[in-house]
């Protein structure tokens, strides 16, 4: 690599820039995003307080009116769902961020560089995972503060957390695609609201069984519900018996199948949309 580098752009013939590989370019692009998060406190403050507000609202305002199964308290029911669905709130910012980068020419600059173009997206996804982990961690801490107690094993609890990260990665691609389609930050923001019904029409805050026919069918068959159920059954352990129609293993299988499907389909769509010029 050393011989491809000249100390000044001068000289009759500048050497060819070799360009970075996908790994280095993804890391560099992710590094930029992470610094941006860290140096834009509003962003972190907003994501964090939004999440806390939702939790307080459901825990203390609506919680009393929502019936859960048997002896299971609402806080124990809801907090795992709340934590799992916080990946969606974290992702909303990604859509606007991507649209902004396209709109303001940052993506053009990256696309004119000798790097694999897909690294612009993978770098973004990588960085947003940091934000997702941050949101999940704060959501977990809030959950414990409002009275949630892990009744399953600690290993299962950690596995549930890990699952949330994996699910977050899948949804990340949805938000990246929305950002690429959006054109402007405002448009992307409105478009990403299509993801909100997924949160509320899932088993995250209320049992889907309580929903009317139609809505219930949607709730049962959309990706977030098996994800929430997988996380919940791991977090509740034996206390959750009777709440679920299937075993933890079943939800795990369904949710991971969804994750793989979303990553492949939406990831490819995003890559295709990005490559078009």
């Amino acid at each position: 690599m050393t011989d491809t580098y000249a100390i000044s752009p001068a000289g009759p013939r500048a050497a060819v820039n070799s360009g970075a590989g996908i790994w280095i370019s993804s890391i560099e692009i992710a590094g930029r995003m992470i610094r941006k998060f860290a140096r834009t406190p509003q962003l972190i403050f907003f994501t964090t307080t939004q999440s806390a507000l939702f939790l307080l609202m459901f825990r203390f305002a609506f919680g009393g009116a929502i019936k859960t199964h048997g002896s299971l308290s609402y806080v124990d029911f809801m907090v795992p769902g709340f934590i799992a669905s916080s990946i969606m709130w974290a992702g909303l910012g990604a859509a606007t961020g991507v649209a902004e980068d396209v709109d303001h020419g940052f993506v053009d600059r990256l696309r004119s560089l000798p790097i694999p173009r897909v690294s612009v997206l993978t770098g973004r996804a990588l960085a947003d995972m940091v934000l997702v982990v941050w949101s999940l961690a704060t959501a977990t801490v809030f959950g414990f503060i409002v009275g949630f107690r892990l009744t399953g094993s600690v290993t299962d609890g950690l596995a549930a957390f890990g699952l949330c990260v994996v699910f977050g990665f899948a949804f990340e691609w949805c938000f990246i695609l929305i950002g690429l389609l959006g054109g402007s930050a405002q448009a992307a923001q409105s478009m990403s609201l299509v993801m909100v019904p997924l949160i509320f029409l899932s088993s995250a805050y209320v049992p889907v069984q309580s929903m009317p026919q139609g809505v219930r069918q949607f709730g049962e068959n959309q990706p977030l519900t098996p994800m929430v159920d997988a996380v919940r059954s791991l977090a509740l352990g034996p206390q959750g018996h009777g709440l679920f129609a299937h075993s933890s293993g079943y939800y795990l299988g369904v949710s991971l199948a969804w994750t793989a499907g979303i990553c492949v389909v939406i990831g490819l769509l995003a890559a295709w949309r990005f490559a078009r010029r």
Partner: protein
Amino acid sequence: MTPILEARGLTKRYGKTQALAGLDLVASPGRVVALLGPNGAGKTTFVRAVATLLRPDAGTLHVDGIDALRNPARVRQVIGLAGQFAAVEEAMTGRENLVMVGRLFGLSRKQAKAAAVRVLDLMQLTGAGDRLVRTYSGGMRRRIDLGISLVGTPRLLLLDEPTTGLDPGSRIQLWDAIRNLVAAGTDILLTTQYLDEADRLASDIVIIDHGTVIASGTPAELKTLAGDDMIEVHARDADQLPAVAKVLGTIGHDPRIEVPTRRAYVPADDGSTRLMEAMRALDQQGIAIEDISLRRPTLDEVFLTLTGKPAQTTDSAEQPANV
């Protein structure tokens, strides 16, 4: 010698807009080429095609002998792009921006750091290198934007309207920076709306309109094409414009009137002598004027001369652009 840039019959259509309509352009190495034209002429589309950011509908495009349509990835190894909208990460320092792009160009961490030091110095930003870009002034931002495209070793540097929207002081600083690059031997393709910018920086000027080249040559050649100096009279009263035009008709050929701005002007072959004649003639006729001046033709007038029609809309042609 392989041309640094060779475009043949390049076309690009966006819906109903024909952005490029069979553009031909060949640039030799060692030259700075300015692409001059009004908004919407196709300048940016052409630069984006060269930067492999868009794919032309038809035609061929070679950058440093590399087929840009077949092998865009290799073109990206030899170009640098600085955009009209300074695409710099504001939440990072100037130095961090440079190191990041240096890494993306394929430099090792150490080389990227060294390159950042060199570029900060070249762009006279060493003192501000460790400040976040969001604290930079408009001119500094453009300079760091230009610098970012230089962290690699571009054979062809693409500058899309590098000084649009800058105040005069910052423009001059940026011109200096660009001139230093030229002196160091970087081939540059720049787009501009300003005749004087092209004049100061470029060895060749290519004027494009509606997606095709309408004239090209050295600045001196184009000035001859563009015609003579203009004598411009600012009348005190719009009613007097016909009288002023009549006087100017005796000085030069084909005087023109702009009623909204109360101005009349005429091309004059020997500017300063004709200016004196015009003043004397106006004085003899007793026509009161606000102002009389001698100036170079504006870009609009160059267009008028070259194409026989105004550069943009009829409206803007009425108003002499400040060149």
